[in-house]
């Protein structure tokens, strides 16, 4: 790889051994993928995926200490994925003991380390860092050093920024040095679609299922999707962005998609059209039957498939303000129509801290309180992804949460029926 004089000096140890190891990591990483040079990180902020102070990842804290002791500071401030703990979220005494004293006992220590390295703010914990309320929204063409698959795919596809699917720690190293190896989704060639996806359904497919279908088919490739503007239009309105957020998270978690193009809608597709499709692109046609086949393929890994759900999580990735207000109104109306005072099961709506702050004092916050809905900044994945919770029958509208935990997936309308008492819960 051809380095600038400054980059070469860092690699040679002029800024110390630790900086040299950071540069060596990025150089060798880039060389594996044919990178010939580094690209300057032009996005204002980084975003890190490892937000949890799990006791068992002690080597990560030792690495952080090594960086701090060597005087390493990130060139750019960074935001983080959501926190794993929130006392507002329902849990029993055994869960509390395990969560706070054992599993996530290093949370405070880790957050102190992050502050020293360049954490943007104490409120900067959300997988949807790109919301206006979170303040980490890149511009089109910005080069990023981010991880968190749902954030990367949103930044690339909806915002037109450029970022590879980085691993935890690698993304921090990019923010520290202010450069990342130039390959893959950072290049024009790497952003070309190798799949042509034709949506031929009779109505707008559920975002979480369409994303799942495409993710499982194309894996890490780039899909160019036709047939959605008929339903979504050609403008990136707030509700369209919400759809694309949920769609993208499913493509990234059910597969490994880092970038998608929606014909006539997402910035690069609107600008460059079908010239973004590579010559030998394969084709995948999605009709109503294919959507149903995908839904039917999801395994139910509850011990008792007929178990009565005990909890519901809505908001993985975190809900936007638009989504949060919409869910509160729909749940409120449904509960009242059912003649109930609260939801049938404890229900947690998860959103970014900035979004939760933005609705403070609103009538919707009062409506949520009246129903005993929990509004939380927690990461539902981290709450659910442990042996204590695996045996609890939890339902969700998130395909990402379904993929990584034992939570059972239902579409939005069904979830609404179940938690408001209109259907069996």
């Amino acid at each position, binding site marked *: 790889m051809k380095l600038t004089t400054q980059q070469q000096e860092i690699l040679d140890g002029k800024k110390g051994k630790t900086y040299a*190891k950071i540069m*060596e*990591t990025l150089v*060798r*990483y880039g060389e*594996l*993928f044919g990178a010939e040079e580094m690209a300057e990180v032009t996005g204002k902020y980084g975003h890190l*995926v*490892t937000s949890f102070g*799990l006791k*068992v*990842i*002690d*080597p*990560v804290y*030792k*690495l952080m200490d090594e960086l701090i002791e060597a005087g390493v500071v990130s060139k750019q401030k960074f935001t983080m994925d959501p926190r794993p703990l929130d006392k507002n979220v329902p849990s029993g005494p055994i869960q509390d003991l395990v969560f706070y004293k054992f*599993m996530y006992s290093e949370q405070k220590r880790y957050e102190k380390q992050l502050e020293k390295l360049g954490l943007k703010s104490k409120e900067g914990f959300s997988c949807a860092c790109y919301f206006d309320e979170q303040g980490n929204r890149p511009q089109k063409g910005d080069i990023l050093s981010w*991880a*968190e*698959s749902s954030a*990367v795919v949103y930044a690339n596809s909806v915002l037109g920024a450029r970022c*590879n*699917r*980085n*691993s*935890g*720690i*690698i993304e921090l190293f990019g923010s520290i040095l202010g450069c990342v190896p130039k390959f*893959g989704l950072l290049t024009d060639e790497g952003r070309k679609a190798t799949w042509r996806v034709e949506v031929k359904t009779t109505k707008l497919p559920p975002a979480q299922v369409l994303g799942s279908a495409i993710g499982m088919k194309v894996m*890490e490739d780039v899909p160019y999707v036709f047939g959605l503007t008929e339903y979504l239009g050609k403008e990136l309105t707030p509700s369209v962005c919400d759809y694309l957020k949920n769609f993208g998270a499913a493509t990234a978690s059910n597969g*490994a998609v880092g970038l998608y193009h929606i014909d006539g809608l997402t910035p690069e597709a609107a600008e460059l059209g079908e010239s973004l499709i590579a010559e030998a692109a394969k084709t995948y046609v999605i009709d109503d039957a294919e959507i149903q086949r995908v839904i039917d393929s999801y395994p139910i*890994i509850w011990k008792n498939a007929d178990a009565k759900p005990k909890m519901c999580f809505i908001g993985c990735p975190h809900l936007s303000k638009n989504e949060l207000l919409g869910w509160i109104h729909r749940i409120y109306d449904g509960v009242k129509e059912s003649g109930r005072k609260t939801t049938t099961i404890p229900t947690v709506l998860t959103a970014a801290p900035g979004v939760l702050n933005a609705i403070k004092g609103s009538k919707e916050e009062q409506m949520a309180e009246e129903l005993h809905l929990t509004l939380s900044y927690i990461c539902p994945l981290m709450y659910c*992804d*442990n*042996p204590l919770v695996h045996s609890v029958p939890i339902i969700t509208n998130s395909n990402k949460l379904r993929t*990584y935990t034992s939570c059972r997936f239902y579409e939005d309308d069904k979830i609404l029926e179940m938690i408001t008492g209109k259907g069996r819960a």
Partner: protein
Amino acid sequence: MKEFKGRVVIPGQCSATALVSHGGFNTLASYQTSFLTGDKKATCSDQNNPDIYKKPMAGVALCLPQTIGCTTGGMILFTAADYGRQPACMLFANPIDSIGAAGVLLSDIWTDAKMPTIDSLGDEFLSYVKSGMKINVKDGGIVEVLDGED
């Protein structure tokens, strides 16, 4: 015995018993329970991967197409290596993926663990090798697979 040649990602030599994952290796799902329980054998906890579920991963020649799953994967592999619970070597049939690459590089540069890694061994490698076969990793990306008669 059959010999395969791939690209050297992390240099080194080793001999170990093969553990073969025909599907993508989900690093987080595979290691998470052993981390929580302190299991030094690193017994695989990915119930979606029947090839390796409940089998020890520490010290084996892990044969896989590529890694899949969460972008914490590289950090997880680094953690396993720092604890000394990493595979003896990682042998990728496909070109290495970005999350797997991060994991083996972080392990190599930031820990004392040795985990030779070869990629691009090809589909035939993954068809031929079976769990339990003996593997020798040699210089230059050479991987010897010994069947029971060798």
